[in-house]
Each structure stands twice: as structure tokens, then as C-alpha cells.
């Protein structure tokens, strides 16, 4: 296997961790390991470049596979009794379900401890990897690897520069900026909720971000676990907060009708149009791969942290994020070794150095990030005081990947927040 960065040569990497890992895992040569994950296309190539280091270090015969319907695939495979060794999934909710059905192998408290010590906002991350097993006991099942930051607003610096706009520091300023743009004859926001079979999910990120900016993290946690009802005024308020942007015809490119139907992948392209269709775009850290070709991050496009209300200083600087979690679906020494491998900084740095990878792992060298934007995003993660995982991914699949989406579409389509929220709550009740 070809290794992307020759070991020991580049000082941006923790080569020592690689060598140490190699030294301690030489006994597993030739053992098979199947890894199943969500990454396809370029992402797959990136992950494979990481996996190659694992293979080179251990001699394990690791094979990665993915599927368009990975969600469906993993359900079938686990239930039918032919799971891969390692399942990497972006949905804690799904993992919790699998754990509940007894398809996951607990990693053990040592790993949890390790996470707590080494990850930024480690406690949060442990929470997202801890589920009730078949026996009803909670245990740590899923190792977080690769994160996304969601509380980002993307913009084109040159456009700001030309129009003389400043990056807003508070939510109040953000509203002011939006109004300013409207006044200048422009449209501030591009919002697109379309995503084929998953249409509606980008709105959930908005609502979650607004939740964290209007309510305490604890309320957020209760919301996610239905500790408070979905139609609690707190939640309804957050939805309406989102509505202030999405349901303001002057604020959104193409009008409100376009919000639900525009594909989220096409939506950011409006930033780069001439004249610009919009100046701002709220989306997670992965979105640059949908920017038009040749846009240089940091120069042609940049992001700022989705600001908080100056009026609510006690909420701090919450970061909404997501990530993929690695679980063992079929135990073997090789599988354990793979989890062990994820503890080495090198497993993170190799991907970091390329693109699209963030990690809350504090021991990695920030220099390894492929560009400044990534590094800035990474810093958000490692320095976050409050980190919250994407709520919709934590909710039961039927809600977080169903009723919530549908509700948001209905909301943008004209229903009021209260109705939508109680519909979602009704669906949630139906699950119990």
C-alpha cells in the first residue's frame, strides 16, 4: 500500500505515535478486518489513505466498503448476522439502536476515559458514544473519529470587502447586517433544504444552532432526549428564531418557496454568483466541497462562527457539531487494534493534512491541517466550552430523520411553529 506521506519525513506529523503503534501491533499480520462506513467517492479515497497506514503498521488485511444505502445496509447486515467488524456511522441514534438490539460490542471504560482526557469537550463525546445495551446497561460503544462543525456561516470576503460589510460578532449584528444587505438591494441568505430523500435536514441544523443560542445546553440535551416536549415554548422559540431568517422573504434568495426546494448542494453556489445571489450561507464544515471549482478557501470563501446573542452572555460560545463514530460490530483482535489505531494522532493527521477532516483530539499537531480554514474550524472544536452533537442525529431515526425534517418543510411551507412542533411531538409519542 502506498502511504500518502512517507513516515518520518514531515515534521507536521506525530510519526512517533505511528512507530509506537506499529511496534505494539505486529502480531496480527494477515488477519481479516472489514470496515464499513459512510464515505464514498473522494471521502473514501481519503479514508483509505488513513487505513493504509493501519495496514502498513499491522499487516492486517483490512477492507473498507461503503454503500449509498449504508443505513439500510448496516441494519440488514447486523440483523442477518453477517456484520462487518467495524461499523462507522454518523448517527449516534442509529448506533444506539444497534446497541439496544445487541449488535454492538462495548469498547470499555478505558476508552471513555481516554476520550475524556484527550478530546476537546470530551464529556460530550463520551455521551454520544454511550448507549444502553441489550441488557439495558449503559456502556461506551462508539469511538468518535472525525468531526464536523456546524455553527458556521460562509461568506465571500471579497464581496464583503467591496460592499464594506464587517463580519458580525453577535447575533444582533448578524440581523443588522442582513437588514443592511437588504437595504443595499441585495439578498442576505442562501438557504436550501432540499436533499432528495433527506430533504429538510439542513433546517434541523439551523434549529439546533438557534436552540443553543437561546437555551442552555441542558435544555438542549433534554430536548434531544424528549426530556422536554418538542412543542415546549423553548423549542418553538428556536424554530421561530430560524423562521426569522428562512421565512423572511426579503432575507432569502429566491423567496420562501425556494427554501424547501433548493438543493442544499446547490444552495451555496449563490454566494459566488455575480452579482451575488446572497452574501451568507449557514452550513457545516463539509460544504466547501460543493463550492464551484477553483474557489480557494480563506481567499475566495471563508466562514465565521455563527454568533451568539449579546443579550444572552451566559450561554457562552456553544459549538454545534457532528461526527462519525466507530463501533465494533464483530469483535476480533484486529477490530480492537483498529480502535487502538484511532487513538494515535497520526490516524487523524493524515486526513487532516488533506482536506475535510476536523478532530477534537487535542494531541494532534494543528500544523497538520491542510489549510487555515480547516485549522480555524479545528480550533473551534478543541477550544469549545460547550460542544453539542447534532440533535437530529441523536433523536430516534423516525424523528431526527423523519418527522423533524418533514416538520421543517411544513414550517417553511407556511405552517406555524407551534403546530409543526406538536406534530413532531405526536410522532415521537407514537414511537413509545
Amino acid at each position: 500500500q502506498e502511504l500518502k506521506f512517507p513516515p518520518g519525513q514531515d515534521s507536521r506529523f506525530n510519526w512517533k505515535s505511528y512507530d509506537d503503534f506499529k511496534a505494539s501491533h505486529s502480531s496480527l499480520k494477515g488477519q481479516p478486518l472489514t470496515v464499513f462506513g459512510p464515505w464514498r467517492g473522494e471521502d473514501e479515497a481519503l479514508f483509505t489513505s488513513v487505513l493504509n497506514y493501519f495496514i502498513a503498521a499491522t499487516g492486517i488485511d483490512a477492507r473498507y466498503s461503503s454503500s449509498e444505502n449504508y443505513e439500510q445496509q448496516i441494519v440488514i447486515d447486523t440483523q442477518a448476522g453477517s456484520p462487518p467488524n467495524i461499523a462507522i456511522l454518523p448517527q449516534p441514534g442509529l448506533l444506539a439502536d444497534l446497541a439496544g438490539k445487541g449488535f454492538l460490542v462495548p469498547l470499555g471504560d478505558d476508552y471513555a476515559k481516554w476520550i475524556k482526557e484527550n478530546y476537546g469537550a470530551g464529556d460530550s463525546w463520551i455521551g454520544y458514544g454511550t448507549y444502553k445495551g441489550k441488557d439495558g446497561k449503559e456502556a461506551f460503544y462508539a469511538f468518535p473519529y472525525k468531526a464536523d462543525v456546524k455553527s458556521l456561516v460562509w461568506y465571500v470576503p471579497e464581496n464583503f470587502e467591496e460592499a464594506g460589510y464587517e463580519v458580525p460578532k453577535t447575533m444582533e449584528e448578524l440581523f443588522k447586517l442582513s437588514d443592511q444587505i437588504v437595504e443595499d438591494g441585495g439578498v442576505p441568505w442562501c438557504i436550501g433544504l432540499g436533499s432528495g430523500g433527506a430533504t429538510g435536514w439542513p433546517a434541523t441544523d439551523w434549529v439546533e444552532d438557534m436552540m443553543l443560542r437561546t437555551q442552555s445546553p441542558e435544555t438542549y440535551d433534554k430536548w434531544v432526549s424528549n426530556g422536554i416536549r418538542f412543542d415546549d415554548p423553548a423549542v418553538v422559540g428556536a424554530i421561530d428564531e430560524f423562521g426569522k431568517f428562512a421565512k423572511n422573504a426579503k432575507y432569502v434568495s429566491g423567496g420562501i418557496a425556494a427554501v424547501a426546494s433548493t438543493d442544499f448542494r446547490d444552495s451555496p453556489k449563490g454566494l459566488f454568483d455575480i452579482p451575488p445571489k446572497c452574501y451568507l450561507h449557514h452550513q457545516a464544515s463539509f460544504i466547501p466541497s460543493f463550492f464551484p471549482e477553483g474557489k480557494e478557501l480563506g481567499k475566495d470563501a471563508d466562514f465565521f462562527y455563527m454568533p451568539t446573542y449579546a443579550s444572552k452572555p451566559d450561554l457562552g460560545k456553544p459549538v454545534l457539531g457532528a461526527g462519525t463514530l466507530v463501533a465494533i460490530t464483530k469483535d476480533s483482535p484486529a477490530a480492537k487494534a483498529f480502535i487502538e489505531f484511532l487513538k494515535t494522532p497520526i490516524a487523524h493527521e493524515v486526513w487532516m493534512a488533506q482536506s475535510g477532516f476536523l478532530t477534537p483530539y487535542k494531541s494532534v499537531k494543528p500544523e497538520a491541517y491542510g489549510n487555515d480554514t480547516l485549522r480555524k474550524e479545528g480550533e473551534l472544536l478543541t477550544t469549545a466550552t460547550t460542544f453539542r452533537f447534532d440533535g437530529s442525529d441523536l433523536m430516534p431515526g423516525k424523528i431526527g430523520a423523519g418527522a423533524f425534517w418533514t416538520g421543517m418543510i411544513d414550517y417553511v411551507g407556511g405552517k406555524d411553529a407551534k403546530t409543526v412542533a406538536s406534530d413532531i411531538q405526536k410522532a415521537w409519542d407514537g414511537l413509545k
Partner: protein
Amino acid sequence: MVSQIVSAVGVVIAGVFACALYYWLSDKVLQIIFPVPKDNVRTASVNLNRRAVVRPWLFLGPALILLVVYLVYPVVATLLLSFYDRSGGSFVGFANYRWAFFDAQFRQSIFNNILWLAVVPAACTFFGLVIAVLTDRIWWGNLAKSLVFMPMAISFVGASVIWKFVYEYRGGNETQIGLLNAIVQTFGGTPQVWISMPFWNNFFLMVILIWIQTGFAMVILSAALRGIPEETIEAAVIDGANGWQIFWKIMVPQIWGTIAVVWTTITILVLKVFDIVLTMTNGQWNTMVLANLMFDWMFRGGGDSGRSAVIALVIMAAVTPIMIWNIRQAHRETGGH
């Protein structure tokens, strides 16, 4: 690469050959078990009758085994699952059925499915028949057929992209990249968000399935049309019937059986269709159909095997009338034989 191809060819030939071998061998075995002596007519005819009793089962055997293992067994498993909870662990009686009865989305799906069943099979069969008949009469008919057939060959993912570029909506005064809106715009109308137009969006989705399945109807009906004895058409020509009359009074009645078959097939396909809804709307904006709902409950977020089983059973129950009708049909046919 070459070795891959060679081994693939080998595997393919071996697989097909093994299957053919079964029939050949089983017939041979039958002949050995029940010999037909040339001189003894009594044993010969007794054995022949025995062969005649056994042979249908030899012919049907592989088909029945496949059907039972791959379809009947899962159906039974589904039936059992429908009485269990989401992970199939504990028995819950009729709770899942009760849930379905009161679930608004379920009712919505039934309603939409009825719409689909009313429109799609009829439209596909109609277009398929018209195209099959018309293309038979022109020299470039084969080309035309291929064009109509093409959507069948496109994968569902491909089809969904195709239709994205038809239904796409761009807000405000942006240039439309969706064909439909572009047309509406050129004629001075206001572009619409077709996909989220309540009630009517169902029909926009149906158009896609019609577009795809008409090729199916066309091919099957075209084959049937070609089985019509020429003389009957000639006789009708002599009788002074025009093309229209020949079509309705001579051709259609003679392929009535096939039309029914196509109709049945597409009806059943409609009951099963979920890809279109999944990729275009995922059932949002009130476009949910049963199959999609089932898929949803089966896989989303780990799935709920009990409820998805109930929905699957409802889908299956919906074909019962068609089944009964087909049994009748089969009886009628054999009566004529």
C-alpha cells in the same frame, strides 16, 4: 482483466448449465424410474401416466422451491414479525395493527396509493398500447420503440436526476433550470414548486413512473399484438373496418388477456414502488405511499420490524382482489382448452 473476464464467463456458463442440467437429468431419471417398455402397452401406459403425474412437479419444482424459500418464507416471517415489537423481541399482539389504524401518515399513504393505483396502471397500459400499435405501422417504429423503452433502462437514480431537471424550481427571477418551469415562464406563467404542490405533486411523481413503465407495457403488448392472426385483421379490413375500428374491435379484444396481465403487473408494481417517492420527496409534502412508509419504518434509524411488517402485509393484502380475479381467469381459460 482478461483472467477476470475468462473466469466470469466460466462462472456464467457453469451456472446456466447447472440449471439446464437439472431439467435434463430429472427427465432422464423419470424415464429410468418409470420405464416404458416397447412391447408391454399396459405397463407402458401406466408408467406414462405416472410420469404425467410426476412431471408437472419436476417442471414446477425449481420454481416452487425458489418461490417458497425466497418469497413465501419471508412472507410468513413478516406475518410473525407483525405481532412483535420493533426489534422482534417481544410479542405485542395487535398493537402494531392498532397503531397503523390510527396513524395519520398511514392513512395518507393509503389515500395516495389509491390515487396511484387509479392513475398509473391505466396510463401506462393506455400509452403502451397506443405506442405499440402505432409504432407497428411505421418504418421507424423500432427506433420509436427504443426511445420509449429507454426510461426502463435508466436506473432509478438516473431517473431521479432526469426529473430533477424537469421539476427544478428556482425562486424569484432567477433563470429556471427546470424544464417545466422554463416552459411555464416562456408562456408567461409563474414558475411553481411542483414537488411541494399539495395533492398535485402526487401526480407529478406519477408522471415519472408512467414515463418509466410505459416501455414495459409497450414491449409486452407489442409481443401480444404480433401474435394476433393476420387473417383476422385482413378479414376486418375486407369487412370495411378502419384502423380505429380494427384496433378497438379486433385487436384489443384478442389481446385482452395480455392487457389484463400488463395491468395487473403494473398495479402490483405500483404497490411496490418507493424509489421514486424516496428520491424525489421522501414522502414529504403529503406524497407518502405505503411502500415508502414501509421502507421508512424498516430501515430508518435502525428500523421497526413490527410496524414495517404490518405495512408490508397491508400492501400484500391489497393484491387479493387481483389474485381472485386471476384465478377466475385461469379457470375460464382451462375451461376452453
